[in-house]
């Protein structure tokens, strides 16, 4: 009886089409490749990660509200995937390469998950990669003791295992919703 119930549930889940929580992108071309210095001291290219789902986030370490919230949710989403977490790589590209040196970035991203990779380009490289992904960022002066602050697109890009941009998670997408979408992409 229990088995039958479980079977019905499974089949039900199978038959119900998946409703994505993230915004769907249908790009005819693979996501633009790039290569940036990582916090572990080696360059990492997007194409090195083919076969895994890549979650791409642009942020900076002095951003204490939006960025840590997103990174904590991404860490939680990976945890919810259980064993499949290995199939998902989170990349954070700093939009503040001046202040986010490699050691700063290393301490910062590892705090959220030892599996996350922090990437830092030169200002030109950073601008180039941001352009590929339609990411806006701009420094603005502030009265804050933090000095300048950086406005930036706060979405998370999802690149599938074949290297195609598939989804965008807006700021505030709960970990459970991201995990559900990732699970679906991994099963396909």
């Amino acid at each position, binding site marked *: 009886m229990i088995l039958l119930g479980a079977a019905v549930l499974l089949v039900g889940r199978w038959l119900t089409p998946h409703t994505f929580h993230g915004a769907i992108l249908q790009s005819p071309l693979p996501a633009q490749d790039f290569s940036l210095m990582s916090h572990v001291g080696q360059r990492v290219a997007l194409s090195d990660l083919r076969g895994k789902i890549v979650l791409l986030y642009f942020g900076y*370490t*002095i*951003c*204490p*509200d*939006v960025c*840590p*919230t997103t990174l*904590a949710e991404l860490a939680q989403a990976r945890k919810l995937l259980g064993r499949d977490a290995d199939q998902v790589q989170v990349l954070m590209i700093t939009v503040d390469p001046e202040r986010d040196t490699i*050691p*700063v970035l290393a*301490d*910062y991203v*590892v*705090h959220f998950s030892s599996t996350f990779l922090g990437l830092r380009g030169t200002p030109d490289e950073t601008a180039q990669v941001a352009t590929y992904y339609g990411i*806006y*960022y701009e420094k*603005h002066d*502030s*009265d*804050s*003791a*933090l000095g300048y*602050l*950086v*406005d*930036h*697109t*706060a*979405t998370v890009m999802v690149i599938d295992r074949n290297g195609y941009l598939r989804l965008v998670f*807006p*700021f*505030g997408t709960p970990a459970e919703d991201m995990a559900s979408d990732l699970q679906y992409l991994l099963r396909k």
Partner: protein
Amino acid sequence: MRLTVFCVLMGVLVLAACATATPTPTLAPAPKIAVEGMWGRPSPKIAQAGAFYMVIRNTGAAADKLTAARSSACTTVELHESYQMSNGTMGMRPVTGGTIEIPANGQVELKVGGLHIMCIDKKVEFNNGVKLPLTLVFAKSGEINVQVEIREQGM
């Protein structure tokens, strides 16, 4: 004639009303502030700043203003807000005017992606479970001391 009598009567009534409503210090409307649900996210010390979140309730009949905050865990404490632009871009800035208005019989929620208290140049690690002292300074209610719990998620 009748009208005059009426006016005199009215005048007496108004005077009487004024007499009973003579303001005494205890009757002046005052804010009554309570602060709840203080939390902040764990972060490594290398992260220069950390945000504190909470709900500030005012059950009094007068508005108040949060004008400043300080903590022995931070070199500087600022009142900030995050803002979102239509294209998914987010930013952060010190609050306009430098204060946060707490309306009479109302509440203000300091939360992720919105208003927050910014602890700058952290003096301690924000480890899970740690409680940090924070003094909130209100224009009328004076100083209120609270503790901010560092934990993964808000309530």
